[in-house]
């Protein structure tokens, strides 16, 4: 909706927009800056902005805590594992709903969506007891399954909205040319579906990485991911600002970068295709 405006007006808008944007981004910027300060510089009053002795000692000391990398790998395994498992189950489901819709497809989609609305805290105790029963507590496989299930409706919905945009005529054309069902899927549909699957994957990794309710309540040590690691700083430990900042910066960096690449898909995924 670009319209012609005067340069003066554009300047005012630019200044205002940048002002608000920097204000919103400031806590993150401040955290990143603090992560490079010594603990003494981090609590200096009045605060120092850029002119301090930049140091990477906090990163080193966080990484030296033998278990930091385990938390990090748990995060990676849980986020990637639950996404991969989710896609394996969701791609066929979304595919069949998009290309062979039945009378009840719409109801089915709405019902899947409704499972997403169940408040976690309401089923925490049963899930916890089931986990204890089956020895799943504090295991990665347990978390992979739970996170896959809570995000499955979003994956199916997102894939469905992408698949539905693939025109059916293309299939008929391919069939006219004598393509078999197999080559139809392999050479015609798959290449068209890849971008949708890729963005679904990206969004789901972000959601799983940041999921904090189940990952914190269902783990203690062995399978605990970064969400758990960071939440431990809620004790007086959190007063080591520089270390908290370094640990936090490392925890959010990969996701922040992935997130910036997936802004557009984010809207579609989080609104279940209601806003595109």
């Amino acid at each position, binding site marked *: *909706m670009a*319209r012609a405006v005067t340069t003066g007006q*554009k300047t005012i*808008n630019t200044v205002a*927009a*940048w002002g*608000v*944007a920097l204000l*919103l*981004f400031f*806590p993150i910027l*401040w955290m990143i800056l*603090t992560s490079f300060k010594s603990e003494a510089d981090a*609590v200096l*009053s009045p*605060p120092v902005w850029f002119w301090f002795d930049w140091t990477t000692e906090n990163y080193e000391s966080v990484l030296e805590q033998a278990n930091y990398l385990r938390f990090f790998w748990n995060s990676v395994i849980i986020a990637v594992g639950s996404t991969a498992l989710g896609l394996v*189950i969701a791609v066929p*489901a979304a595919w*069949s*709903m998009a290309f*062979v819709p*039945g009378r009840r497809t719409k109801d089915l989609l*709405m019902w899947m969506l*409704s*499972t997403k*609305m169940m*408040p976690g*805290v*309401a*089923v*925490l*105790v*049963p899930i916890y*007891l089931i986990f204890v029963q089956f020895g799943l507590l504090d295991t990665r496989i347990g978390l992979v399954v739970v996170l896959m299930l809570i995000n*499955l*409706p979003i994956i199916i919905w997102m894939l469905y909205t992408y698949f539905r945009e693939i025109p059916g005529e293309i299939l*008929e054309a391919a069939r006219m040319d004598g393509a078999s069902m197999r080559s139809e899927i392999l050479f015609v549909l798959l290449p068209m579906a890849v971008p949708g699957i890729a963005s679904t994957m990206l969004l789901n990794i972000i959601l799983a*990485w*940041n999921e*904090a*309710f189940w990952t*914190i309540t269902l783990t203690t040590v062995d399978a605990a991911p*970064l*969400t758990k690691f960071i*939440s431990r*700083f*809620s004790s007086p430990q*959190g007063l080591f600002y520089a270390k*908290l*900042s370094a640990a*936090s910066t490392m*925890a*959010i960096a990969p*996701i922040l970068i992935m*997130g910036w690449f997936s*802004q557009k898909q984010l*809207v579609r995924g989080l609104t279940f295709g*209601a*806003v*595109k």
Partner: protein
Amino acid sequence: MSTQASRSAARTMLSPAVILLLIWMIVPLVLTLYFSFQRYNLLYPDRAGFVGWMNYTNFVATPAFLTAVLNTLVLVLGVLIVTVGGGIMLALLIDQPIWGQGVVRILVIAPFFIMPPVAALVWKNMFMNPTNGLFAELFKFLGLQPYDFLGQAPLASLILIVAWQWLPFATLILLTALQSLSSEELEAAEMDGAPAIKRFWFIMVPHLARAITVVVLIQTIFLLAVLVEILVTTNGGPGTASTTLTFLVYREAILDSDVGTAAAGGVVAVVLANIVAVFLMRAIGKNLDA
């Protein structure tokens, strides 16, 4: 064009997802319902049995219950007002022709990707800490007494933290909706001499109405479930000043090991979430027909 064969193939492809979600939905819910009518405390496992509605009356009779209901309302409404109001203004601003729009978008969306414990702890320790947080420094600089945000105004502080996390979401969705508005309509109105405020009210607001509805409903679902932010900042306190329904259920289950009462509270939470969900599904379902 679908044949009998392709239909049965479709059913096979669909069934794993349906069966898994069915189990995931029904098993825990049935167990929660069952526990909610049982005396079941993990600390006293021998005292068990059917107790009728006792857990429900206990849960509702907790002194914290009314406070929790009120706090939940304040938190959800507070965050909604800040994010939707702020989101509309911010979306309108970013939608204007400006220099560096791409970078502005990236900066604005960033808080959404921060995991909840990081967001809450950075705000709690580095901004709201009354001795050396950045706000305390700002107050000192202005010659004011440092203010203990989380101690004196825990709910307002939580609203600030949670709103910071969700403002990007509202902005991004409203911006997307705004960009799909045809410029011809606006230009026509402008040519006809409609003032900016009227163009906003009669063209943009109706166009944004659906997006706003979706934002409000989706956020409400997530806001009702906010827990980790409370857990790492105020822990529901001081006293019960920042205890929400979700936190209250969590407290019963984890701290008091009272499965029965927690389950009853859980059922209350499910009912509440479902009321919101019905409206959300209607808003989204409409779009499926289009």
